[in-house]
């Protein structure tokens, strides 16, 4: 009976404090310009947790997960298999709309921060994002070699990043995360999502975003190649002919 009361009290404690935390999130930039010396960048995500007056001030047990998703593309994962003496691409799995770049930073290792069901539901962590059922037609139950291959290959390329201690609390309600944007990360719009949890319970989420864009010469060159492709092609041909002729003049011996 006393145990039951204690349990009821615990449960009440867990539910009743109607915590109304809100998140405020800022990025170190909203638009990253690519110039000819661009070789990757680093994104800083700043955030503050605002509590409303009634809720008890509880420090130290907030958890934060920062997820950056790059532009989405459809892709195919292929598996080589032996056919007689030769190895060929035999089986393949198509994925629709997978972010080409993914970075996840958290204040603690993800499995300590929320249970598997919550992580799956909120898409917290690379496993949960790539394991999401809507990514490909095949079932996401059990171990899927294609999904794990995608995860492994992208991590090796540095395009999928997971930082289990990447979110740092500067004070009880202010945090910061630094995530790298490698040079190979594609041009386009990036979504930043910050999730706040406490004791495995999601409290709030907040979205932000930034754009990675070509500027100046790079942007004009790309536009020229796209909008004036016949002229661009002829210009490339003229360039090749001209430099070939120039070389023969420079190196002329006879």
């Amino acid at each position, binding site marked *: 009976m006393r145990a039951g009361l204690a349990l009821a009290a615990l449960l009440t404690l867990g539910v009743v404090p109607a915590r109304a935390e809100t998140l405020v999130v800022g990025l170190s930039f909203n638009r990253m310009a*690519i*110039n*000819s*010396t*661009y*070789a*990757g960048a680093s994104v800083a995500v700043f955030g503050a947790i605002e509590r409303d007056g009634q809720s008890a001030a509880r420090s130290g047990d907030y958890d934060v997960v920062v997820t950056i998703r790059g532009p989405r*593309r*459809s*892709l*195919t*994962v*292929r*598996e*080589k*298999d*032996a056919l007689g*003496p*030769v*190895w*060929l*691409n035999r089986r393949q799995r198509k994925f629709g709309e997978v972010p*080409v770049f993914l970075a996840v930073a958290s204040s603690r290792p993800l499995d300590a921060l929320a249970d598997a069901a919550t992580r799956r539901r909120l898409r917290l962590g690379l496993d949960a994002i790539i394991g999401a059922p809507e990514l490909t037609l095949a079932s996401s139950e059990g171990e899927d*070699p*294609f999904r794990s*291959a*995608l995860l*492994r*290959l*992208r991590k090796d390329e540095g395009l999928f990043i997971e930082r289990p201690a990447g979110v740092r609390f500067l004070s009880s309600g202010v945090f910061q995360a630094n995530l790298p944007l490698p*040079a*190979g990360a*594609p*041009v386009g719009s990036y979504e930043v999502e910050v999730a706040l949890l406490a004791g495995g319970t999601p409290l709030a989420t907040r979205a932000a975003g930034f754009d990675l864009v*070509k500027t100046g*010469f*790079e942007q004009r*060159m*790309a536009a020229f*190649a*796209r909008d004036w*492709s*016949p002229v*661009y*092609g*002829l*210009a*490339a*041909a003229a*360039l*090749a*002919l001209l*430099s*070939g*002729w*120039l*070389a*023969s003049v420079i*190196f002329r011996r*006879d």
Partner: protein
Amino acid sequence: MQIYLPIAEMPVSVLTLLGLGALVGFVSGLFGIGGGFLMTPMLIFLGIPPAIAVATQTAPIAASSTTSVLAALRRNAIDLRLGLVLVGGGLAGTGLGVWFFAAMRRAGQLDLVIALSYLTLFTAVGGLMLTDSLRDLWSRRRGRPRPRRLGGDHPAYMAWPLRMRFPRSRLYASVIPILALALFVGFAGAVLGIGGGFIMVPALLYLLRVPTGVVVGTSQFQILWTSLVALVLHAIQNQAVDMVLAVILITGGVFGAQFGARFGRNLRSETFRLLLAALVLTVGLRFAIDLIVPPVEPFSVVVAEER
């Protein structure tokens, strides 16, 4: 020193690319081949998207073959008449090849077709050339050089109808096998993303018996036209030509090609053929190893082209 490529959308090391351009230019100038079969895999290895690698490498090839053709013209080491026939057949073959490429891509078997064609083509051509050169060297060492060919000693296909005179190559042969050769080279080039010089040079040497001095210039003349057409078509159809990448590769390539050509002039004809045979065979064997050796990582990720 890093520079950002506007179309490939990635930063690359300028020095690495200059070196790559110079190396391929050297091989290209030495053997009178385009060098696309070396350049394309290396660019892809550096992380350049395949479509952009295939399209952009036509620019340095066009540039270095321009230099070679101009040099050959000055030395009168080119058969323009034979070259024009080859260009005509080659362009028709390229058209057929592009169509076949699209059909195989729809069928989903493009990778296999490319790997198998590289394997069979390169090992067959390389193996034939190597055995011939080795036999040549062997009989020379024993002091009994193989008898040189006599005037009437022509293969039967040279005497087919529609014969044409090619005075510069000392050739009086039917146009049919020449056009067929050019058609095949253009076709293979379009499917494999290569210029086809490595097929053209041995074929001119062995099948048509064109004198060695004229082979390189004539082959470069044909490569110049096919690579120029390919460059413009790739820019229009795929928008995959990266001008910054092209400029870097051209700069490296023109220097490399000069040294290659100079080095090639001091080379004995037998050594020349032996080296070319070894190079072609190596590339073929590399594809064989890829096909036969169990891969460490059986999985691969292909991102759909956005264009």
